[in-house]
């Protein structure tokens, strides 16, 4: 697609010259890489397709919510009725399918953030996902992702004694997502089980040799990285993994990806940033209310995350999970029992360091004049404010000036995280 080519033309020019970004990673940037304080991990989970924030974190205290969504609103909280909103603070509540989040919220390690997202006005999935992943809303020429810039830009975080690991940044996806694309080395894999060459002995060595030598182009560089990563993973022995603390992951692809991220963390492979995504949120048609299509997705989403938290146990002291989606959905339901593309959305932050047990973000209201363009939840928190707080206070970055160029975090009146890194 032209747009993507345009964004990446800088990288492509280098490839043409025989110098790929991967090659650059190993020379120019390698020396500058700094690491987070030992053991700190950020897990970013992307709900692709624009999750319906108003039905995830339900503003049951808003009468307008119920008038605008006669067919799909989540009923007001009713004690003992599991088909109603789970009340959080008398005004907001969780979708009943997010029940697995409730104990985390009560324990004070989960915080919803409402009316958050990209300031861009776009309602295109592709643009909005690009902006969320590039971290530069309305600027299409950015070619790398913000997570990668965090990894690559010198001085973002404190020095660390862990040697460079090919698993420093891992995406549990078959393709490298834009958010992790860029100069810093990253690994993408659909699953850990897939990550092995189906040959042994000298054949593997020869295959490795095919990529060790020759030109430093895109294909060779990818191959070189792969064989390095392979050796490390083999030593971690992923086949013999068992979840701890009685955690049970859903058998869904998303659940399995989270189980694998947990494995990587426990294997001590130097994982610092992990990414996974989950689709099916683009609920234009028949999204359902307390049950139905969206509820099914939310159940898998929350149960997978809750299992991850349980499995990691005390390790959650060093881990922070951040969920995100490209935008929210229209405040009103549409003509097909669903919701069309909207504006502000909601995120969840989960971890011991999170100032949980309350809903963060300034609530803009749902009255007609309070809606963005008269139709969508208005934005009160730029997602970069959240990212900045996480990168500085959790990951220990000195500055995020190069991660979010030109962005000055407005007024973080709310404290998402407790204490410093």
């Amino acid at each position, binding site marked *: *697609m*032209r*747009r*993507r*080519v345009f964004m*990446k*033309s800088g*990288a*492509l020019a280098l490839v*043409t010259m025989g110098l790929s970004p991967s090659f650059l990673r190993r020379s120019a940037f390698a020396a500058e890489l700094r690491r987070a304080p030992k053991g700190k991990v950020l897990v970013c989970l992307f709900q692709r*397709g*624009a999750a319906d924030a108003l039905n995830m974190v339900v503003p049951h205290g808003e009468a307008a919510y119920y008038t605008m969504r006669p067919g799909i609103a989540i009923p007001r909280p009713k004690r003992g009725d599991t088909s109603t909103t789970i009340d959080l603070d008398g005004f907001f509540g969780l979708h009943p399918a997010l029940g697995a989040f409730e104990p985390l919220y009560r324990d004070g390690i989960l915080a919803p953030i409402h009316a958050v997202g990209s300031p861009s*006005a776009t309602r*295109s*999935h*592709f*643009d909005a*996902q690009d902006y969320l992943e590039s971290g530069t809303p309305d600027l299409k020429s950015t070619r790398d992702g913000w997570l990668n810039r965090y990894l690559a830009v010198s001085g973002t975080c404190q020095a660390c004694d862990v040697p460079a690991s090919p698993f420093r940044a891992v995406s549990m996806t*078959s393709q490298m*997502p834009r958010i992790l694309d860029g100069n810093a080395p990253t*690994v*993408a*894999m*659909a699953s*850990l*089980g*897939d*990550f092995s*060459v*189906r*040959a042994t*002995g*000298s*054949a593997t060595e020869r*295959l490795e040799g*095919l990529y060790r030598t*020759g*030109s430093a182009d*895109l*294909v060779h560089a*990818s191959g070189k990285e*792969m064989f390095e990563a392979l050796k490390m993973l083999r030593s971690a022995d992923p*086949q013999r993994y068992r979840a701890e603390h009685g955690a049970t992951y859903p058998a869904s*692809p998303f659940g*399995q990806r989270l*189980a*694998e991220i947990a494995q990587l963390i426990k294997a001590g492979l130097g994982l610092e940033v992990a990414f996974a995504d989950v*689709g*099916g949120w*683009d609920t*234009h*048609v*028949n*999204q359902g209310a307390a049950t139905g*299509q969206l509820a099914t997705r939310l159940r898998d989403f929350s149960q997978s995350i809750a299992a991850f938290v349980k499995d990691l146990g005390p390790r959650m002291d060093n881990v922070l999970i951040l969920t995100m989606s490209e935008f929210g959905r229209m405040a009103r339901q*549409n*003509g*097909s*029992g669903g919701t*069309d593309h909207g504006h502000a959305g909601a995120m969840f932050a989960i971890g011991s360091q999170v100032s949980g047990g309350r809903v963060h973000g300034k609530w803009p209201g749902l009255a007609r004049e309070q809606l963005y363009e008269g139709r969508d939840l208005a934005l009160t928190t730029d997602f970069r404010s959240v990212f900045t707080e996480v990168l500085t206070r959790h990951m220990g970055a000195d500055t995020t000036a190069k991660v979010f160029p030109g962005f000055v975090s407005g007024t973080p009146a709310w404290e998402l995280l407790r204490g410093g890194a």
Partner: protein
Amino acid sequence: MILVPCVTLGLVGVLSSVGTERIGAQSGAQQGELSTSEAAHHVLNRLGFGPRPGEVERVMKTGVSRWIDLQLQPRRITDAAAELALSRYPDLSRPPAALREMFPRPGVLQRAAGGQLSAADSMALRDQARAGRAFVGQIMSARVAQAVTSERQLQEVMTDFWLNHFTVFVGKNPLMRYCLPAYEREVIRPHTLGKFRDLLGAVAKSPAMLTYLDNAISVADSTRPTLVSREATQRRVQFARRAVRRGAQRPGARVDSATFERLMARRPRGLNENYARELLELHTLGVDGGYTQQDVIEVARALTGWTVRPGRRDDDGFFFNAAAHDAAEKVILGKRFPAGRGEDEGEAVLDLLARHPATARHIAHKLAVRFVSDAPSEALVDQVAEVFRNTEGDLTAVLRSIVTSKEFFSRAAYRSKVKSPFEVVVSAVRALGGTADSTAVTAALVARLGQPIYGHQAPDGWPETGDEWMNTGAILNRINFGLAVASNRIPGARASDWERYGVLRGAQRTEQVDAAIAAFLGGSASSDTREILMSGTNPLLAGGQTDSGAVDVDATVEMSVEGANMPPRRRPGRGAPPERQGSPDSMNVRNRFVPDRTNPLRTPPLGATRPLTGLDLVIGLALGAPEFQRR
């Protein structure tokens, strides 16, 4: 060595007398223009899915220009092989309604059977369900089979290109699969080298696209006038309701009133912008094509009523529903569309979009990326876009301007493209001279490499550039694919299918390596690659002529098509087809469909392991080499 200046490639037949050139020689002209052998490899890799055995020589004999000319006129090429391959899929030529009856979804069967099932009934149900899944496998398999066998290679490449440009997702809803054969056969294929406007119009009216991007359920907002008075519609609904109530009293009535009310409640009741947005952003103008959110809404309004006749046996094609059409005036891209034109208005919108300069540029750029390089020059794109505009989107003329350009035959473009997974698999089968695999295994391998056929959720289609396809995981899958081919585990793409296999098996390593480089690596490999292919011995020469005596185990291949190599849920005869990945929403997401591997951690390395030795190992290494990943 005969060097042919690029500018002469426009002359028919000028390249025909090059039989003396040694294929496989390292070109002495790395910095200069392409040799004739390189040019032949180049066109076979770009206008086709790679050479079959002997094909480079045949193209050189025909002449590169003449071969291109022929490919641009596919009807002049007889194509018995593809017809034969396609004849193995007789079901795919049936209309959607017939397919629905032949391969009903298990749920439908169960309901039809009612509550009580005998053992025999259950068995029959299971068989039916299996047949239904096999049908989805056939759809995917037929695409690979045609790409492998067809002599009309450019038509196959363009089919791949347009099916990707106008992508639809099999998992969108349970009915999508029945639309796919007709979508490919009647909507895409007839127009691949025709007029862009015809293609755009055929897509816009196809049940597959109307469903995939929700236009089928987009209706005029209640504040807008339609072409049919609301009172009349209301009267019809009430009449139907009364009829159903009366009918429901009778035993055996087809629809009870509760079902009817539920159907009525699910009736579309408003505008859906999904198709309109992607029509502008992806299909025509491009994301920077200069349209606004208001244009999206106005286009959506103009296309209200463009829908599919619901669920009838004889006719489930395009249907213009006047009662759903927003009949008020619209302004699109600054042009006024007067009220009340009905279906013609949508046609006029498509005319406007197809003729728009932004569309010419968008399509020109995307084709240049596909055929020339990941970063084509502005000059080339301008030139191609101009041809697009001057010929009113004549795709043959557009293609001709690309594949006869100096840039196309430049050294910089040569082997600069990274193959997509589809191209990796199809080119491997072709290089081996393999036959089309009539099981769904080869198609499943394409999925395994990251590009499931009809499995891309988002409307932007698969990437056309190498940086998107290349990462550590991708290269791993490709290496494993090569090993699976070499260990004879892939029907239709077994190393032993290679016509030279028998002769080469007992040959000297040098001869094996030369042949592998010629067949798989475009005739030349880096000295490093060659050295690695050369290392090791041939056990057949060292220790007798039997396989059993070959204990010089270079490798133990664990990969198995039945095991780790296959995404279990997509395997024919087991697991569900990928529909559950989707849902009745628009799946408007950018991430790619990943086969559902419910428990990848515990996927055992199933299947007998077989040591890779001698020629097999050479083939495995060649297919795993960086050179094979490019075209």
